[in-house]
């Protein structure tokens, strides 16, 4: 890794220089720093940007974010491993997070989970071989009155039944 003229860390891949976070994200991070007493407070936001651009948070990502904010890599590692929403390994294009907590359980979320497992031929925690889908079990997502539900990206899919799940999986293909 080398330091670019504007202070951003860049990486050389096959001779070409590649930014590790987009210019707009780097600008946004500079703006966010003004909102807090110190740059460390931007760590969650910076990790979000990294994950949005790269799909998951690699060791490289943690090192990069640490340098950007002037904090230690082990601190960033501690943060990444504390919060469940950061992917610590690559995930499929669509990460399906099925809530199985109490209100969803009462509305048969286990059937929804089983149905997805059967359709995608994977178990909870796995990714399809074509890397399209990852299936995980989630804790309460704040949609208990609209159970059963799942989250995929920023979208909430609520009041699910098997037909709705089928349509969703077809749409996401």
């Amino acid at each position, binding site marked *: 890794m080398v330091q670019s003229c504007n202070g951003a860390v860049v990486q050389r891949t096959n001779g070409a220089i590649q930014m590790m976070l987009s210019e707009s994200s780097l600008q946004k991070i500079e703006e966010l720093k003004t909102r807090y007493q110190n740059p460390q407070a931007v760590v969650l*936001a910076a990790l979000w940007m990294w994950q949005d651009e790269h799909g998951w948070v690699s060791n490289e990502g943690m090192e990069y974010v640490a340098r950007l904010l002037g904090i230690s890599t082990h601190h960033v590692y501690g943060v990444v491993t504390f919060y469940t929403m950061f992917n610590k390994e690559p995930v499929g294009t669509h990460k399906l997070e099925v809530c199985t*907590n109490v209100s969803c*359980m009462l509305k048969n979320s286990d059937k929804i989970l089983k149905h997805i497992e059967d359709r995608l031929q994977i178990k909870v925690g*796995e990714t399809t071989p074509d890397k399209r889908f990852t299936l995980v079990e989630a804790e*309460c997502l*704040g949609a208990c009155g609209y159970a059963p539900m799942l989250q995929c990206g920023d979208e909430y899919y609520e009041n699910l039944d098997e037909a709705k799940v089928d349509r969703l999986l077809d749409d996401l293909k």
Partner: protein
Amino acid sequence: MEKLILPDIPELHKVDVYEANGGYQMLRKALGMKPEEVTDEMKKSNLRGRGGACFPTGLKWTFMPKVTTKPKYLCINGDESEPGTFKDRQILEDNPHLMIEGALIAAYAMGIGTIYLYVRGEYNKWIVMVQKALDDAYAKGYIGQNILGSGFSTNFYIHRGAGAYICGEESSLMNSIEGERGYPRVKPPFPAQFGLWGCPTTINNVETIANVPVILRLGWEAYSKIGHPKHPGPILVGVSGHVNKPGVYEMPTGVLLTDIIYKYCGGVPADKKIKAIIPGGSSTMILRGENIEGVTMDADGLKAAGSSVGTAGLIVMDEDTDLIRVITRITKFYYHESCGQCTPCREGTGWMFKILKRFENYDATLEDIDLLLDVANNIEGNTICALGDAAAWPVQSMIKRFRDEFEQRCKANGSSTKSVAKEMVHALR
């Protein structure tokens, strides 16, 4: 009752519509009052926090030092991760400006120059909505420098979490804003003395803050007459589980639980009987269905019934519900969410889950009931934050009120294999 927090006005989330309906007039009114007068209104209104602990809001505000050389902060708690709770999201979606106006009034009352709204990471869609509302409020001069020419200035930022129930606990929330792991802090010192970056800080729930402009509009006296006198005001009740019309309902405090279930939510599907309810999110004590007659949704009513209001997330379970599965799932949640700082909580939640798995699998013995209770009793009161208690209460109350369910789940010949739960943690989560 006229709806005050979530009125039926189309497009109210838009700043123009909000203004056309009297929006931001209470901010103007507050800026014309002395800060202490605003806090006094809150105290006299008897508003109590809607984040789970029912703490008197006005009193909390008086803990903030009037004179200090340090900056002061307001954190609005939109972490909303307690299972069964989904009400704050409705405010963020349908009436974000009410919450923003309330926060500005609170900041003025306490002389606060920076507001952070902490929202759980999963709610990104709602973060985008609230950011739009904030941008509009900035553009109109309601937030920022010299608000409406009053000389008062404050900024308002959203801080996005990243998936951790514990970050709803107020000191953990502050650590999360500081860019730390979300570990709760030992108290004292309390946030009003030593909060964000060691500076005076107040933390209030989204719904609590949305009540602030309403109190100024109605006046404390009229507000304090809504619902139950000791816990007054409108309250958002989120109903889930076995009811015909689940959802978030605004009502005065003090409504009968049976009215909530049968009048607001259309009763139980197929007219089944109610076996049990959890009145205020998964941390509150479970009640038997036959004991909810006459119980009301307010602090006193639920205390008398042996539970608490919590977040008013009411979970209804019909006669066919397998309560052992329910308590096992709830306990798995606390085990997963324990931050791991204190031994009783970190180890105890895992042990309770293991023992409950034995009941779930018909592989427990009668002694396991007492063992389970013993573990729960040793968590309660012995931890840094209330997550430990929150994990113990559901288990304790389930054993107290449904011991028969546990007994039926024991192995007939009393020869448990003491099997160990295999799937102890979520894959990838």
